[in-house]
């Protein structure tokens, strides 16, 4: 029962198929960065790479206002208090605004946290530019202390007319176990 004609051909096809298998396995993982890129471009899921934006250079559109709402949440097992100073602001597209977020660490130990943003509607995330934000970095907070964390932002004047309300949500996660050296350094200095 020897395989008849084309025996040498088999290895070539098998090699190609195996390469496809490996390629598709890699593609599964490549979907992860591709998804991020896709989200950045489309605002899919209100998700975007949270990066620092340059200050606004475009003219402020004073003809209309957009209601920007702030929602803060803490993750399960996270004992911090975390609230925006104001619930919402009404701004002109292009207008730069600073909003403070108040955090307190009621526990007896130093902690490090990271705020993760999400925007609704997802489309609006493309036009929300943060010049300065506590969410760019991990935030250290010593035991029993409070802090006000600023976020400076503006809406791109090109934001579509049909967007009247933008909701920005932050969820605070406990990162003490995975703190970056920069964040931990905050606790060392006062002791010195």
């Amino acid at each position, binding site marked *: 029962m020897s395989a008849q004609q084309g025996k040498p051909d088999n290895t070539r096809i098998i090699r190609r198929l195996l390469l496809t298998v490996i390629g598709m396995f890699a593609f599964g993982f490549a979907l992860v960065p591709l998804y991020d890129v896709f989200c950045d471009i489309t605002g899919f899921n209100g998700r975007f790479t949270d990066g620092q934006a340059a200050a606004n250079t475009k003219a402020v559109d004073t003809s209309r206002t957009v209601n920007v709402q702030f929602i803060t949440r803490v*993750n399960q097992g996270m004992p911090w208090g975390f609230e925006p100073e104001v619930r919402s602001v009404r701004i002109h597209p292009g207008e730069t605004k600073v909003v403070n977020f108040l955090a307190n660490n009621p526990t007896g130990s130093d902690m490090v946290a990271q705020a993760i943003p999400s925007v*609704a509607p997802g489309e609006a995330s493309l036009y929300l530019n943060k010049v300065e934000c506590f969410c760019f970095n991990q935030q250290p907070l010593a035991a029993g202390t409070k802090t006000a964390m600023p976020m400076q932002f503006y809406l791109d004047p090109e934001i579509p007319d049909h967007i009247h309300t933008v909701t920005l949500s932050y969820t605070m996660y406990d990162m003490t176990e995975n703190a970056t050296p920069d964040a931990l350094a905050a606790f060392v200095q006062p002791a010195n």
Partner: protein
Amino acid sequence: MSIKLITALTAMSPIAVQAQSQFNLTQGVTDISQRVYDLHMTIFYICCVIGVIVFGAMFWSMIRHRKSKGRKPATFHESVKVEIAWTVVPFLILIGMAIPATSTLIAMEDSSEADVTILVTGSQWKWHYKYFENDVEFFSLLATQRQQIENKLEKGENYLLEVDRPLVIPTDRKVRFLITSDDVIHSWWVPDFAVKKDANPGFINESWTQVNEPGIYRGQCAELCGKDHGFMPVVVIAKEPAEYDAWIAEQEAAQRQAKEEEQRLLAMSMDMDELMDLGEQVYLGNCAACHQGNGEGVPGVFPALKGSPMALNDMEAHIDIVVNGKSGTSMQAFGNQLSLRELAAVITYERNAWGNDTGETVQASDVNEFMNQ
């Protein structure tokens, strides 16, 4: 035109009318839900017509073209014209379906400014509602008694579709829902509004509705979210705007009062019996779903409290885990779900029930001190 005709046919057909509640999609109480229903019936009737034609042809040949009737088989086996026809005609029908579908979808995405914004947060296995413009927030839990589920009591009319505190919204105003989750993915669904949106942990989704008729509307969590997925209903009461305004003002005042009351009660300590009684109630309502009524938990999934070192020794850790929860597990933070008295009582209960006889009591002031240390 065809849609109107079909809708009219639906309305006339006695079966469809009778079937509405029991066997068919609800027409709902919003303009969108009505459009969704019409679209559903349109597509359904188109499918029925195609079905009758295709199955009709099939049964015709099954009956007429049998060997037992002495039929000699034909030999044709291709026809480019016929093939093109039955590629193109379905394609045109699809375009006919896609047009109303697209316009309905776009109507659903209307992003005009809303009058009321409500943050809906799912967690295992309850919903939390927070009115964005007002200082009102609360949890909404299944209100059906355990005994009904376990068949020890007669099941009520709204079995599994009743909650302790329903969401209240105004009619005739645009209500915007921001939907998210604290743990796994849930899905907030009210069929009468044609709103179903996933609650994804860490992300917010939005949806909206404008209800035309006051009433009580019931739905359920629609995404598998763990053990008690079947037991986290959604109940929404739509009230006339004036009634709603009165309600929300009342709630705002009541919630403020409750907070003040709680601070006043801190000085009062409760005795063991009081704590155990209240503690048992709170435990059965909030903890028993996972840790079980007998405190033995479910091995490998939900830890036992009976005989647990934490419940027997480390009181501070015990208060911590109840108040703040434990990240990366199903253990939620109950600090903002229960009052200080309830927290104190349930911790006391866990330290003294099922043979955990520590004899220790925890008072509201102890919990308060822990939370503000």
